[in-house]
């Protein structure tokens, strides 16, 4: 296992190099100049001389490879650099935003799992009952609403009409609730459908009818075999989703003014704040590889069939 993890770590370095280079290239090619963005923040025209001076000061006048190399060398020394926008340390900015995003990701994942695991199982077992139909209807419904619409509707009805929760949420659990719910609506809808499909898939396997024929108790088959075997796919789905949640959600974070990674990334892209974008990309690469590593380890743990790979 140690060797396996070691291999994955080397793999991580490869991904990080490829990604950082690609991002740098993409951002370099995309129109938008950090110096212009910085100077134009309030809609005031800038003279070309000032712009030139600032570009020079920010090192933007250097060739592409020099800029990338300079950045990469710094990263190798453990320095993610400073934000163009405000001169703060990129690492600090990311760490702070990550804290908020982690709360949101875990909160919405928890809500989603609490709802969709039982409902996924129930709809699989009660397949074609009215309950199945009703739940299916709602999952389709939840899955087809754009996130910003869910957020705005939730805010309008729960905060403005019912006055249950504040619009201006503080950073407490209460403030976390609404954005977490907004994020978990589409997530639940997907999960329920996917869990149901996976469990049904397992139920139709020959080992289930075999066990029933042998007289094994249904409950036992369900919990020992079916769920156990289904958990591979469930884990894949959950961990992939969790990985993408850790990239932050721009829409929900903007509407609920939750200062997470999505908002930070979006702002950085708008401002062409290269160091922060780069830091963000590296971070998501790490998260991605970690999530996959975790998933694979969990595979080995749960399903001996893949152990030989």
């Amino acid at each position, binding site marked *: 296992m140690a060797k396996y993890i070691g291999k994955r770590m080397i793999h991580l370095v490869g991904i990080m190099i490829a990604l950082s280079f690609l991002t740098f290239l993409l951002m370099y090619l995309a129109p938008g100049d950090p110096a212009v963005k910085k100077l134009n923040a309030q809609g005031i025209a800038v003279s070309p001389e000032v712009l030139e001076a600032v570009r020079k000061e920010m090192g933007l006048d250097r060739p592409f490879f020099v800029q990338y190399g300079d950045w990469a060398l710094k990263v190798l020394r453990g320095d993610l650099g400073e934000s163009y926008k405000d001169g703060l340390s990129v690492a600090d900015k990311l760490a702070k935003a990550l804290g908020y995003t982690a709360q949101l990701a875990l909160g919405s994942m928890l809500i989603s799992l609490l709802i969709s695991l039982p409902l996924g199982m129930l709809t699989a077992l009660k*397949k074609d009952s009215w309950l199945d139909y009703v739940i299916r209807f709602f999952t389709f419904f939840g899955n087809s609403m754009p996130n910003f619409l869910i957020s705005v509707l939730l805010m309008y009805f729960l905060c403005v009409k019912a006055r249950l929760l504040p619009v201006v949420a503080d950073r407490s659990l209460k403030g976390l609730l609404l954005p977490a719910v907004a994020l978990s609506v589409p997530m639940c809808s997907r999960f329920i*459908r996917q869990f149901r499909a996976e469990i049904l898939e397992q139920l139709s396997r020959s080992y289930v009818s075999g066990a029933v024929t042998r007289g094994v108790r249904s409950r036992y088959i369900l919990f020992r075999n079916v769920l156990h075997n289904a958990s591979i796919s469930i884990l*894949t789905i959950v961990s992939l989703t969790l990985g993408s949640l850790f990239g932050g959600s721009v829409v929900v974070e903007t509407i609920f003014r939750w200062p997470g990674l999505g908002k930070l990334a979006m702002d950085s892209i708008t401002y062409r704040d290269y160091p922060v974008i780069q830091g963000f990309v590296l971070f998501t690469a790490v998260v991605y590889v970690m999530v996959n590593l975790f998933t694979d380890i969990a595979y080995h743990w749960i399903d001996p069939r893949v152990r030989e790979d």
Partner: protein
Amino acid sequence: MDILVDKSPRKGAKTRLTLFLILAGILVVLSVIAPKLAPNDPYEISSANINAAPSAQYPMGTDRLGRCVFSRVLMGARTSIFSAVALVAITFVIGSLLGMASGWYGGIVDTLIMRFADILLAFPQMVLAIAVAGILGGGMFNAMLAMGITGWTIYARLARAQVLALKREAFVDAARLSGCSSLAIMFRTLLPNMLGPMIVNASIQIGSMMVGIAGLSFLGIGINEPQAEWGSMINNSRAYIQLAPWAVLGPAIATIITVMIFNYLGDCVRDVMDVEAGE
């Protein structure tokens, strides 16, 4: 608790499949003949009719520029439905093929494909989308490209996981022992067994893609005004949700109905395949 009941395929699966195929067909036809059905010019603005409530002349009211929401919803059907379906179809085929190859052959093929997928998947989609929109400009095709670049990886990963799990099943060994070629096993034995969950996933993805393209317009990339597209219509009207809810609800309900039809369609496909597998 009787868990065996669930194995029996849903009755009338084929009837339902036909029903939803017809519904989906109607949607496609509607989107093609939309320009003939639209009661008003979907692009005609009118300062006298801003945010007007639904009426005989404007069945779904008007938006913030006085445009007929109903006509725009009809016109938007083509863009929205076509783009999402095409995108899912392309990414599904590419992703599944690569995922199957990866899972079946393993080794260097697996490494190459999955590492490539890893790099794309590890790429924050937003950075990619904005870079694509920035470099190539906005518009439908580029929005689709931005979504599609990473879209195929989800199918590749799922297909690979399925193949890995199925590879050790007795029936695969049997096929191999009976001298079937790798390709034959992949397409005749593995594919039917894994298609169920994958199609369910693809049907969900049609919705997600439509919603995702709508999300791009929230970020200010993707489809530009004044083109009628449901996602950008919802986004551009959302500020008026308290004043002119119809301008949001029109395209939103159209999106929801469409996504639901495609979801149900995916469901029926699965049911029918269950029936056939059962036979």
